[in-house]
């Protein structure tokens, strides 16, 4: 074998592809040493006599990158050698790697999934959905052209989204500074992130807070620091956690009802009347649900004289104070 310095440089994707092929082809698994000395992309840099620490670190990173794609790369201990790192064997079990053959997608379903992928045009989920579509296309299904063109988009503007979604996946406990509505100072929270849900156009984190022993909902836009991962992990939440998070948000939303008078024919009349769950009371005013008094007050303030909050008093005061503030700031 030629010395490392003149060895041909193998592109990263060729090394990763070769690693996946090698691990798919083995039932018993391969040891790290077998991989580094024989698999394309490693073997060129492998030293039979010397130190392979760099190459080992590369292998660790490659394993993470491959697992990140959803490839179930397994580690198994050799019989009778539990705890011996050098005898660990690696493999990709075919059954957990391959899409079950009974899963097929019709052209209509494929069209819907393409639309669903289009929703994520920013943030880490755009990469995820792009790769999901690649896998879908590998099945060879063609799509039906939708009658009407759609360009849906969910924004992920909050910088906390990506680190939280990684923590969710890896089940890592995280810390961040959170500015609670109505409080002046942000406080550092340590939580186990269970779900990320968008409700009424806003992203929320549903998380266990060990300190208080409670499950809480945090508004992502009120996370005012970077999200930092700790070294602690937590057990997987039940599969229906997102439904639970959305149901709790809905419960809060349902529990808050405002009565708002709107000028007939105004923008407030047209748009507020179309909010989900909006109804008209006996007096002709709109009955509207909301989640957070501060957020809803901001929205109602935008309508200026077109909307007048009748009840509750807290919301009435909040809208009035906002309008007075804006008038004063521009006076």
């Amino acid at each position, binding site marked *: 074998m030629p010395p490392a310095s003149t060895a041909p440089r193998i592109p990263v994707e060729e090394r990763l592809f070769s690693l996946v092929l*090698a691990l798919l*082809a083995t039932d018993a698994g391969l040891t790290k040493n077998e991989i580094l000395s024989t698999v394309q992309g490693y073997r060129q840099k492998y030293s039979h006599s010397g130190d392979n620490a760099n190459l080992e670190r590369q292998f660790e990173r490659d394993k993470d990158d491959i697992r990140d794609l959803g490839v179930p790369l397994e580690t198994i201990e050799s019989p009778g050698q539990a705890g011996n790192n050098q005898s660990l064997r690696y493999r990709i079990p075919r059954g957990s790697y391959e899409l079950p053959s009974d899963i097929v997608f019709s052209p209509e379903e494929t069209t819907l999934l393409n639309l669903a992928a289009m929703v994520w045009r920013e943030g880490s989920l755009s990469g995820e959905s792009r790769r999901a579509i690649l896998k879908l296309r*590998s099945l060879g299904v063609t799509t039906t052209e939708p009658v*009407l063109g759609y360009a849906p988009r*969910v924004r992920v503007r909050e910088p906390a989204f990506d680190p939280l979604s990684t923590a969710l996946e890896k089940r890592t406990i995280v810390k961040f500074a959170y500015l609670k509505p109505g409080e002046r100072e942000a406080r550092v929270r340590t939580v186990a992130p269970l779900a990320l849900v968008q409700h009424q156009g806003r992203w929320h984190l549903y998380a266990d807070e060990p300190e208080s022993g409670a499950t809480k909902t945090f508004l992502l836009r009120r996370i005012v620091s970077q999200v930092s991962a700790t070294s602690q992990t937590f057990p997987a939440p039940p599969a229906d956690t997102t439904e639970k998070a959305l149901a709790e948000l809905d419960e809060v939303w349902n529990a808050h009802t405002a009565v708002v008078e709107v000028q007939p*024919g105004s*923008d407030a009349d047209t748009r507020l009347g179309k909010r*989900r769950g909006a109804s008209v009371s006996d007096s002709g005013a709109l009955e509207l649900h909301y989640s957070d008094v501060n957020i809803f007050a901001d929205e109602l303030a935008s309508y200026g004289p077109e909307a007048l909050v009748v009840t509750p008093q807290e919301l009435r005061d909040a809208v009035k104070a906002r309008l007075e503030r804006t008038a004063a700031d521009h006076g």
Partner: protein
Amino acid sequence: MPSRLASNGRRRTMAERAQPRHAQDKLAFLLSLVPYLMDHDRVSVGDAAKQFGVPEEQIREAVRLIGVSGIPGETAMYQHGDLFDIAWDDFEDNDQIVLTNLVAIDDSPRFSAREAAALIAGLQYLSALPENADRDAIATLTAKLSRGASAEPSQVAVEASESDETLALIRESVASGVQLEFDYLNSQGERERRRVDPLRVESVDADWYLRGWCHLREALRTFRIDRISNPSITSEPITHGAKDVPLPDTLFEGSADDLLVTIDVAPGAVPLLADYIPDGANTVEKDGTVRTTVRVSHYHGLKRLIASMPGVATVVAPPEARAIVAEWAAAGAARYGASSPSR
């Protein structure tokens, strides 16, 4: 390969940082392309490119790599039988792909937990679309995605919206090629009956828009769906289809008549105004406040925006814009009467 050489020389740190994602994407592509090629005894580079929505050269590059890849095998020497093989002459001369030897891979890969979650959440978000009216079909599709993932899909969800009557009508009008008619209230408070050739439905989070050719204005217009009332389908055929009118990517295009307004914003709120800040706007941060410029079609739209950000965004200039915002907010506050309830 020249491209490979270029990447290890200059700008190494940047290349290294950019590499993992890039290489991961390439790996995902290779793992997806192989089963597709296996299912087709013979496929042209053009057809494969079309199926995956990628440039033909990307297919050729991937096929060249697949053609020399394989497993170490018994001898650990990557012998001929341990490698994929393709009909090279057919490939080089006719741009046709024929796999002649297969290794290791039998089927398409599963979705990752996050990939499945992204698609499931996207489907939930789209539940307002008439195409999604069949909730059972959506549930079946979601279950398939979960079962087709290598781990439990991660917990990301978007609240489902109710089926929207207006969206259903828009779709119907497109399907039958007739104009749509509705009352529309613009942000200046003017209500008009519009006749529109619908071209595309777009959305941003909870807000939905119709882009279409407006026969009243004889121009391309963007309508907020929640400002549309009394929609109905006419018998008048459309004169502009999606193929005739190129739609710009941005939902709101600037026009020469736009007004420029200087505002002060809290730094954290700048992203909320990103749509209104024109490219190359002069943005300066001083004493914890960002001074920048927003572009609006008229001050009456601006007053609503500014009134929704009390204490967070303030109009600095021109005076006319400040006055309109002040008047709007004061008129709103006045409705609560002079005898203010105690706070």
